[in-house]
């Protein structure tokens, strides 16, 4: 319903968090959660592309079956560094440390996180950890696989395992401090009227993620410390020749690393809830169900770790227990997918770029998640464990899921963060290219896995070549899809259209302040009276 008023062109606010202070010290010593989010954004983008280069090299190498491009030791380092970079230095921090850091305080109506100095410290800790990892890289790389299995990693390799292990464990502390900050902030700093039942689902998702971060990460820390001690001092905690038990390493490792995958996906799910509601202009179908499903995933995620170990030599009875629990943890994710779909029903849907990414997420995460059911089936897992089926599964949920959600979130909140819109046509193109490239890369890997091609193979039997070539072709397209946003986001910083406070006419406290927000987030501290996703009040809001 348009009125006769002229539409005012949005202008950038005069003062906001980006221009409040200039100079490198104002950035490196900032306490502003928004600036810290930008620091993290730059850092993890670097590691994403670094990990991506390794991926490109892996796929190039696998074009031929006989291992012609790299030597096997080099190849082993490539997949190790790809995994470590992507998991610990990109995926784990991705949404929480960038979008979470930026948005969480604003979404709950407060000025900053509970502990801004610890927030800054967490970035520095992350950078130090990353420094160790880069040191491991330039001193020759590490070839243990990102899973560091003992006794291979503790006694049989000459690469700088300790450097990398120390880097990962230090970066883990960054994760712990972020999680700690989020939990205290959500508990103690919500604006008046912002009850738990009015929190945006993005906040619920990051809250659940934070619980996993604080409980799980310390265990990987101690596990890696023990690996480092064993390697450095030749003691026998995991080495059977010295009385140790290598399967104990696997238990300790996966006790964190399984919940870690939920650290990686839950924030992405939070992003999807925000995008689907906005671009359907509808409240979410089942708010409590989505909120509690995040908590359920966090809790159940801690009791399924040994599904990575069905053929590792655990007892049949353990295997049965872990298999049944693994099915239980799948249910809350299914509930979310159904709820998002139902949210679109009778909505008012617009397929802007964030929504394209959100829809891609829903489809690809469903496929990825359901292939998890294959792996949880004991008799079937025997065949597909440690094959390309597993690789395809986790790339579907991590890339088709998480990276897609991250990109969707970046596009959705880009105007809020920078004050400018990204250009829509190249963005839509990039989303399409990414979707095609992704599926072409990873779908053939399901087939390869069932055929029996094992993971981490430098050379493979020639009958697997066609599928490998298809996969590499897809990877080259996917690479383009990822590089495009880098270009147009950078372009938009100077030339993008000024966004205004609420270019999407979205609900949420973050859209009620300027774009970019002022340093203290709100000119007047908000008082919350409306429920989340109050898209039904459109008339009252003057929106059409």
């Amino acid at each position, binding site marked *: 319903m348009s009125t006769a008023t002229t539409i005012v062109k949005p202008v950038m606010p005069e003062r906001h968090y980006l221009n409040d202070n200039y100079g490198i010290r104002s950035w490196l010593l900032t306490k502003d959660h928004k600036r810290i989010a930008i620091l993290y954004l730059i850092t993890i983008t670097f590691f994403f592309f670094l990990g991506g280069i390794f991926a490109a090299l892996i796929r190039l190498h696998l074009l031929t079956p006989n291992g012609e491009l790299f030597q096997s030791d080099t190849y082993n380092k490539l997949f190790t560094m790809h995994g470590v970079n992507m998991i610990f230095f990109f995926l784990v921090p991705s949404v929480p440390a960038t979008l979470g850091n930026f948005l969480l*305080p604003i979404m709950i109506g*407060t*000025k*900053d*996180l*509970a*502990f*801004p100095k*610890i927030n800054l410290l967490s970035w520095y800790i992350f950078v130090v950890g990353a420094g160790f990892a880069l040191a491991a890289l330039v001193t020759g790389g590490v070839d243990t696989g990102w899973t560091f299995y003992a006794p291979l990693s503790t006694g049989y390799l000459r690469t700088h395992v300790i450097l990398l292990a120390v880097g990962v464990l230090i970066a883990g502390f960054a994760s*712990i401090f972020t999680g*700690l*900050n989020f*939990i*205290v*902030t959500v*508990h*103690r*700093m919500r604006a008046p009227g912002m009850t738990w039942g009015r929190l945006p689902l993005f906040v619920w998702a990051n809250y659940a993620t934070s619980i996993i971060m*604080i*409980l*799980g*990460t*310390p*265990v990987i*820390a*101690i*596990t890696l*410390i*023990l690996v480092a*001690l064993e390697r*450095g*001092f*030749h*003691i*026998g*905690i995991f080495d059977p020749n*010295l*009385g*140790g*038990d290598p399967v*104990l390493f696997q238990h*300790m490792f996966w*006790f964190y690393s399984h919940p870690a995958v939920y650290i990686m996906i839950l924030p992405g799910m939070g992003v999807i809830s925000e995008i689907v509601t906005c671009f359907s202009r509808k409240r979410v179908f089942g708010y409590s169900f989505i909120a509690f499903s995040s908590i359920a995933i966090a809790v159940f995620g801690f009791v399924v770790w040994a599904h990575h170990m069905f053929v590792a030599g655990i007892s049949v009875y353990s295997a049965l227990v872990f298999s049944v629990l693994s099915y239980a943890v799948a249910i809350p994710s299914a509930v979310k997918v159904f709820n998002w779909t139902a949210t679109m029903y009778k909505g008012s849907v617009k397929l802007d770029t964030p929504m394209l990414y959100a829809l891609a997420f829903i489809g690809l995460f469903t496929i990825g998640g359901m292939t998890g059911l294959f792996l949880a089936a004991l008799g079937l897992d025997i065949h597909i464990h440690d094959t390309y089926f597993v690789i395809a599964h986790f790339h579907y949920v991590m890339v088709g899921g998480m990276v897609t959600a991250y990109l969707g979130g970046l596009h959705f909140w880009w105007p809020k963060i920078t004050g400018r819109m990204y250009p829509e046509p190249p963005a839509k193109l990039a989303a399409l290219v990414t979707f095609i490239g992704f599926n072409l890369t990873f779908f053939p890997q399901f087939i390869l896995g069932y055929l029996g091609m094992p993971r981490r193979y430098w050379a493979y039997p020639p009958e697997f070549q066609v599928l490998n070539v298809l996969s590499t072709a897809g990877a080259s397209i996917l690479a383009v899809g990822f590089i495009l946003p880098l270009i147009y986001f950078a372009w938009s910083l100077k030339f993008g259209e000024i966004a205004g406070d609420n270019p999407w006419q979205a609900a949420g406290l973050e859209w009620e302040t300027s774009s970019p927000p002022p340093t*203290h987030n709100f000119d007047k*501290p908000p008082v919350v009276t409306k429920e989340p996703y109050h898209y039904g009040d459109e008339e009252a809001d003057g929106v059409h």
Partner: protein
Amino acid sequence: MSTSQTTTDHHPALAHQFDSMEQQQNASTFGMWVFLLTEIMMFGGLFTAYLIYRIKFYPAFVAGSTSISVSWGFANTLVLIGSSFTMAMAVWAAQRGKRQMQVWFLIGTMVLGAAFLGVKAKEYTDKYQECHIPGHVIGKGFNTWGGCSASDNKLGNIADEIREKDPNIPEGAAKQTAHQTEIFFSFYFAMTGLHAFHMVIGMGLMTWLTLRASRGEFGPQYYTPMELGGLYWHFVDIVWIFLFPLLYLISRHHHGV
């Protein structure tokens, strides 16, 4: 930006993100508890691994435990409990704005903490001299079955100690058990080492708190850092309360095997 009328809102220690001193204190204390929870998870992982190997290598763990000094361990336990008392008193004094008392009790805590670390240094030195340091990187390497010292082959000789306790155990079996004590000592150093590392951090915290306390920064309106420091210190103490029986008191009530 706050609208409360009490003077505490203009307290110099009120951080900009908080609306009131009460909110700040609440949030900070909660944050410290969450942090201690993460520490429990970290030590917990280590303790779990320890328990698994203790069950697997019980006789070796008994032998290893016998070779570390209960007296010094117990002394350290008393020292740490004492230091928790002085810390609690320091927080009590801070709550009441008693500047001198705070500082003295903090110093007392540090002295006791240093005493603890001193005893640990002595114990570690003993282990070094007895060749009980696992692996073969530090010192003369690990040797619990004789031959650590050229002149005295009973020094650190756990195989001998086992046979002294029960002469029926033959040499081969005793040596085998002595070999297995390497795992015990690995955990001994990992656990007490991680604990000592936390103690050292604690000492740093105490130093910083003492400086601030001596400047009169803490009083009834604001003593949060003291409270947080207290929580941390008590936590480190409690970890030791677990460590002591787990490492020092294995099967001690049996005289002999």
